């Protein structure tokens, strides 16, 4: 009897031990096999050998993600690496959850450099993984300054988009005898003429975008800050040295208000801008003021993906009778700057191995975008083969990017996440006419630490 008891006692102890072990096992079985590897020197040869698998998380839409994966698979097959791209629904939030859970990928791509910089403690400087001279020699200047922490580059762009674009409907312009404005005076004259003719509204300008409602307004403001004051003030504005209540930013805000919030500039005024989705491009192709027709849409290059299907078909076929672009004329007393955004990739600490390095080199090269350009993305590289762009319009946009002298990355995306969120929210309230710019500026400034 006694021995029987001891036997059972031991067995249950074993079971208990198994339980504790399995509980611990669950906690540490995170995909970080290289977590204990010491930091490796810059040469790829010094990196540990990879396991043949590389995971990338990003915030791409469906079409972008598929095209990106296609390029990755092609590269992976040629190099014997299995590269998987996963798009997170709300990247900025989800990636933090993944990090907390110890489930971070090898590489992640932030749509906003601010988000990457906030998490720099989890990332490693790129120079410790790959030789940076190659990507840096082909990138348009400015892109390398976005994700710098303590003097080291933590992130470089993979894809880009451009926001200094005005989309318009050439056939509607032709019908009413309007011409594309090339300077501030012509733009104002055109706006006045559209209103006087009663043919529609000069601008299409929805700023609703779910949780990010307000960002199209921030783009407008950034454009005018960059145009009026150039990259210096623009950079100081991002870091908070020039605050939102300053005369500079206020002047830019006044310019936006003149363009969009003045009577008759946008269908339904500010309140309908605040509730109208930025994706709603249909009014650009409507006919007549009673149908809410608007004539110009200042948006990023990606907006073509939200155009009506028939328009997208036309563009694909190289038919520009119903949609074309022109650069937004600089305001009186300003110089035209190019504003854009893009996805910035960084690599997580403990994940650097030879495979990851190879994949990094590939995504920081112009070649990675050869399929993705079909979805509206453009390359941040000067050397990107322009003939790869799927159509004339995008080639125009891509060329403008490649030739950009004053390039400004979306400012709000570089501000601290909290400031950015308040910029969106207070900007929306300002557009909706609920508060003055003074009040909005005060609210945003208070979010700077």
């Amino acid at each position, binding site marked *: 009897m006694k021995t029987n008891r001891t036997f059972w006692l031991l067995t249950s102890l074993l*079971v*208990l031990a198994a339980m504790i072990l399995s509980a611990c096992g669950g906690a540490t079985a995170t995909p970080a096999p290289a977590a204990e590897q010491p930091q490796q020197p810059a040469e790829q040869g010094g990196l540990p050998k990879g396991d043949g698998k590389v995971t990338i998380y990003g915030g791409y839409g469906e079409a972008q993600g598929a095209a990106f994966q296609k390029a990755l698979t092609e590269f992976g097959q040629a190099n014997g690496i299995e590269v998987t791209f996963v798009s997170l629904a709300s990247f900025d939030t989800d990636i933090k959850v993944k990090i907390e859970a110890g489930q971070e990928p090898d590489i992640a791509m932030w749509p906003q450099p601010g988000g990457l910089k906030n998490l720099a403690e989890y990332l490693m400087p790129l120079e410790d993984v790959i030789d940076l001279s190659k990507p840096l020699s082909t990138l348009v200047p400015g892109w390398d300054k976005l994700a710098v922490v303590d003097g080291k580059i933590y992130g470089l762009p993979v894809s880009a988009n451009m926001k200094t674009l005005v989309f318009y409907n050439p056939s509607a312009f032709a019908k009413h005898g309007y011409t594309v404005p090339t300077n501030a005076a012509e733009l104002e004259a055109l706006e006045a003429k559209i209103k006087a003719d009663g043919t529609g509204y000069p601008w299409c300008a929805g700023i609703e975008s779910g949780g990010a409602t307000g960002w199209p307004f921030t783009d407008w403001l950034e454009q005018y800050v960059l145009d009026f004051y150039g990259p210096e003030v623009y950079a100081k504005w991002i870091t908070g040295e020039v605050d939102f209540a300053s005369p500079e930013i206020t002047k830019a805000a006044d310019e936006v208000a003149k363009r969009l919030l003045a009577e008759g500039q946008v269908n339904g005024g500010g309140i309908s801008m605040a*509730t109208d989705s930025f994706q709603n491009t249909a009014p650009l192709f*409507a006919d007549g*003021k009673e149908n809410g027709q608007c004539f110009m849409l200042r948006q990023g290059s990606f907006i073509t993906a939200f155009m009506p299907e028939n328009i997208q078909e036309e563009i694909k076929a190289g038919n520009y009778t119903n949609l074309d672009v022109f650069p937004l004329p600089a305001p009186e007393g300003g110089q035209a700057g190019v504003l854009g955004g893009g996805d910035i990739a960084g690599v997580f600490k403990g994940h650097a191995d030879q495979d990851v390095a190879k994949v990094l080199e590939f995504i920081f090269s112009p070649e990675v975008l050869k399929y993705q350009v079909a979805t509206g993305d453009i390359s941040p590289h000067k050397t990107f083969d322009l003939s790869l762009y799927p159509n004339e319009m995008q080639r125009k946009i891509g060329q403008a990017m490649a030739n950009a002298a004053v390039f400004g990355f979306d400012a709000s995306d570089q501000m601290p996440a*909290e400031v950015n969120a308040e910029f969106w929210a207070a900007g929306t309230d300002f557009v*909706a006419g609920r508060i003055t710019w003074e009040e909005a500026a005060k609210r945003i400034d208070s979010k700077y630490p």
Partner: protein
Amino acid sequence: MGDILFGLLAILIGVAASYGLYWLLNLLLSFLPERIRKKSDWLAFLTPAAVLVILILVAPLFQTIVWSFMDDRARNWVGFENYIDLFTDPRFLQILLNNFLWVLVVPALTVAFGTAAAALSNQVGPKLESIFKSLIFMPMSISFVAASTIWAYFYAYVPPGRPEVGLLNAVITSLGYSSQPWLTIDEWHINSFLLMAVVVWLQVGYSMVVISSAIKSVPEETIEAAQLDGANPWQIFFRIILPQVWGTVMSVFVTILILVMKIFDIVLAMTRGNFNTSVLAFEWYKQFFENSNIGPASAVITVLVILIAPLMWLQIQTARQQEMLR
């Protein structure tokens, strides 16, 4: 496939291990002298559950409270600064006001509609009753986010001239008024009330079903006695039926009250807290996940916990009263 196997294995081991654990405890107890064992065996069996509760529920609560006195990254102590920031921020006071309005309006309306639906549906005969109740109960099967999407279309606003998609605005314009951007109107917190309508719509079914079953269990004799005494239907309802189901009504009320205190999904899906519709739980989400400010986020949630705690107590009290009535 590997993950599934691993998960199944984990479940198996888990079940076996918990069985083994209690078995082991029992065994260990059996070694103790009879006298001590009789007095302490409840303690031995309670301990594992108590440890789990402390680990999973109590410890995070205290951690959150501790964090609320720390900075954005939860590294340095800042004293009461987070709380001072909150209560000097006029927008946070608006958030509190919004939460207060939610609590004031939604549980009361839900219970009132639910009771009315329950009482009326009892009068229309079994066939109609089941149809009637199914219709009212149906929204219960819709998730909060899906319901928000449906109602977002109901409230949708489009600029003049564009094809109308909002049902409410279609009704308004057909009556000759001009369409309104409903969810942006915060005079008198109208937009918050519009969000509340979604929750009332979702929860009336629940309140109706629970209260209806209570009404059905009211003894027939008491009603007959009242009828013999010449009471009219109103008097029967308010003087005879309602007092007898009051405990149920209160427990439904408190359940919905607590649900509403924590309301989050509706605000997230419909306005994202814009236009002065934010509430405490949403403010916490924004601070914690979007701004990564651990300290201030913890302060927000601590305020919420402090406000909910008395409600929990109230709920336990009503549950206890229910028990006593039985």
